[in-house]
């Protein structure tokens, strides 16, 4: 069943890939030659998860340039650090558009930042693609006032969809696999988790996980003892997580307090290859959702990208990297099809995107959809993965056909013991 989906997707992948490669090589439009390079601005958090974004973008740009660029035009990446601050991002955005005259901007994994930039992309009529911000708020704004905000695209799975992907995996692994019945939702209080939690609350019961409690904590929480104690008191089978800004500290304290309940769900920082070291191995047994992972061939492009990235930048690839890499290709493809870098033409072209990248088949939801310009997810598009940290390695466990190992837990986790 699932297997078949894969096959078709793979096929599509081949197809998409080849067609673009051909197109890029062709460089058919004569008038494009005499124009300068295509400039893509990148705003990211140099000191956090976002650090992979500019690197991956650069990698993609270099590959495209190596193949003759887009219709003969080279792609140039201009990137700035935003110190994770909205204000700095706004300044950087202005700098990119007014000073560096970039054609497109890719920005940040922090929804807060993207929300601050969205109005500016509208005001300055510049296409903004976020490779990693997840909140539905971004697309909701576009839906609210399409004409004004249509210049923003969300190159990452929106939160509500994320929750669905987590539920899909939970159904197979926890409910069917481990016969779990109850769960507690634990999320950081941030823009992107609001829709995520809503999604959890809706889909978990559907798959047979009864939600006992729903805890949102402020992102600057340092002491998780009270939270874990409260959860333990409620004796759920699993903790469903919504973590991104924090992640390290709850994980470390989960281990040091030996909370007997597994953690399962979104945990942004767990994607980092350095997560094991940062947590002194407390990560062992942590289960997290991702759209791609090391040595998991989601599509034929995944592994080559990971290799290329690690060869060039060493071992610092975070989840944003995959999407950032794909988005550069998506943009290049759109510019090629639009035959111009004019924002409105570009928007039109992007909306017609059908491209298979490292995380799956990328299409943007059409106008009229409540999540217009968000990524299509689910069967045939992006299904996501479910990985687990197992003695120092990120092992993919779901979907089965991409599974690289078995579900195991550190001794202090007592499956089923908590409940019934």
């Amino acid at each position: 069943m699932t297997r078949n989906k894969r096959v078709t997707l793979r096929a599509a992948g081949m197809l998409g890939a080849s067609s673009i490669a051909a197109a890029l090589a062709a460089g058919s439009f004569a008038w494009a030659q005499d124009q300068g390079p295509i400039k893509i601005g990148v705003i990211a958090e140099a000191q956090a998860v976002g650090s992979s974004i500019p690197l991956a973008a650069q990698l993609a740009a270099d590959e495209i340039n190596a193949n003759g660029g887009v219709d003969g035009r080279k792609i140039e990446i201009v990137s700035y650090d935003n110190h994770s601050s909205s204000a700095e991002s706004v300044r950087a955005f202005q700098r990119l558009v007014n000073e560096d005259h970039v054609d497109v901007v890719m920005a940040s994994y922090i929804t807060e930042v993207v929300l601050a930039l969205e109005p500016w992309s509208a005001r300055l009529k510049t296409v903004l693609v976020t490779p990693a911000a997840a909140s539905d708020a971004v697309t909701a704004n576009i839906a609210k006032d399409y004409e004004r905000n249509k210049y923003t695209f969300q190159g990452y799975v929106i939160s509500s969809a994320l929750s669905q992907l987590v539920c899909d995996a939970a159904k197979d692994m926890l409910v069917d696999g481990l016969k779990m019945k109850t769960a507690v939702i634990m999320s950081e209080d941030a823009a992107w988790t609001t829709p995520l939690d809503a999604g959890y609350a809706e889909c978990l019961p559907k798959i047979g996980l009864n939600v006992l409690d729903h805890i949102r904590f402020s992102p600057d929480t340092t002491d998780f003892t009270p939270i874990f104690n409260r959860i333990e008191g409620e004796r759920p089978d699993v903790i469903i997580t919504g973590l991104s800004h924090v992640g390290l500290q709850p994980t470390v304290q989960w281990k040091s307090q030996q909370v007997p309940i597994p953690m399962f769900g979104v945990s942004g920082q767990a994607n980092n290859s350095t997560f094991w070291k940062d947590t002194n191995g407390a990560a062992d047994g942590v289960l997290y959702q991702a759209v791609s992972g090391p040595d998991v061939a989601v599509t034929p492009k995944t592994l080559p990208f990971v290799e290329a990235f690690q060869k060039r930048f060493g071992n610092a690839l975070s989840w944003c990297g995959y999407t950032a890499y794909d988005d550069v290709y998506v943009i290049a493809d759109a510019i090629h099809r639009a035959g111009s870098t004019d924002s409105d033409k570009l928007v039109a072209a992007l909306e017609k995107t059908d491209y298979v990248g490292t995380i799956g088949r990328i299409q943007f939801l059409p106008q009229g959809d409540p999540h217009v310009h968000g990524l299509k997810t689910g069967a045939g598009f992006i299904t996501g993965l479910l990985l687990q940290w197992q003695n120092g390695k990120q092992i993919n466990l779901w979907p089965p056909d991409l599974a690289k190992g078995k579900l195991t837990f550190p001794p202090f986790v007592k499956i089923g013991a908590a409940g019934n």
Partner: protein
Amino acid sequence: MLRRILLFPPVWISLIVVVAASTLPLYVSGYILGLLTIAYYFGVFSMAWDLLFGFANEVNFGPTFLIGLGAYTAGILDNLYQPPIFVCVAAGAFAAVTGGVALALPALRMRGPYFGLMTLVAVLMLQNFVVVAAELTGGEIGLTVPDVISIDDKVNYWIALGFMTFSGAVLYGLSRSPVGLILQASGQDAVQAGALGFNLTKHKLAAFIVSAFFSGLAGALMVFYLGAASVGTFIDVTVGVQVIIGAVIGGRRTILGAAIGAVFLIAMGEALRPLGDLATFIVSGMALFVVLAFPGGLLGMVKGAREAT
């Protein structure tokens, strides 16, 4: 009278500078303008702070309490009812003044570090409130306001410049006026000032109100320039630190120096952006050097050079 004011060096020098600055849009890029726009607003923050510290001798660690009140009040109002922008801005300034009084009345009873901490606590409280009252304020996410004054860099720039000039004129004039004299006297020696028949609390409170007014006004205007308000931009202690450092490295008790310092700080931070993470490190390093080597601040350096020659 007026002639004497106009002939006073700081006045005509700054007039020349302002005139020169107002012509910038003709030959520098929109980006530089955008940067200076923010810098000018920070200039106002620092000047307002300097009035309080430099003259009333009260160390206010919480300039962002006043700024934040102004910014968020204006932003929230616009978000909820979209009245004309100037109404929001006025409301912001008003909120800042009210908050300022509420803070000053108890705080002015305290001395030295206690006053400082009280103002610091005020900031932390406001921060907590913004985060907790997320539906209203946008919480950690920050608040995106539908309207901006203008998206034209030049217009925004001129507004900011004009506003800074206006504030500078008022605050500087105030500091040189009789009231300024009284403030300094009360700041320097409470007993003597009292013996001269001045009601210190009254004057310090007034200073606080003026300071609050301009901080709030600037905050509100800045919201409608950025089109967004977030804790990190308006309230966070680090923002307040920038304001204070701006005033100190510019030269305390000079008002104008504060503006120079703030603009210097922002400009440096931006000029060094390509250095990425190191930018802040270097800027703070420079500031620290100024504090250690030239206690008089940048303006003090200039004065020193003039007197030396």
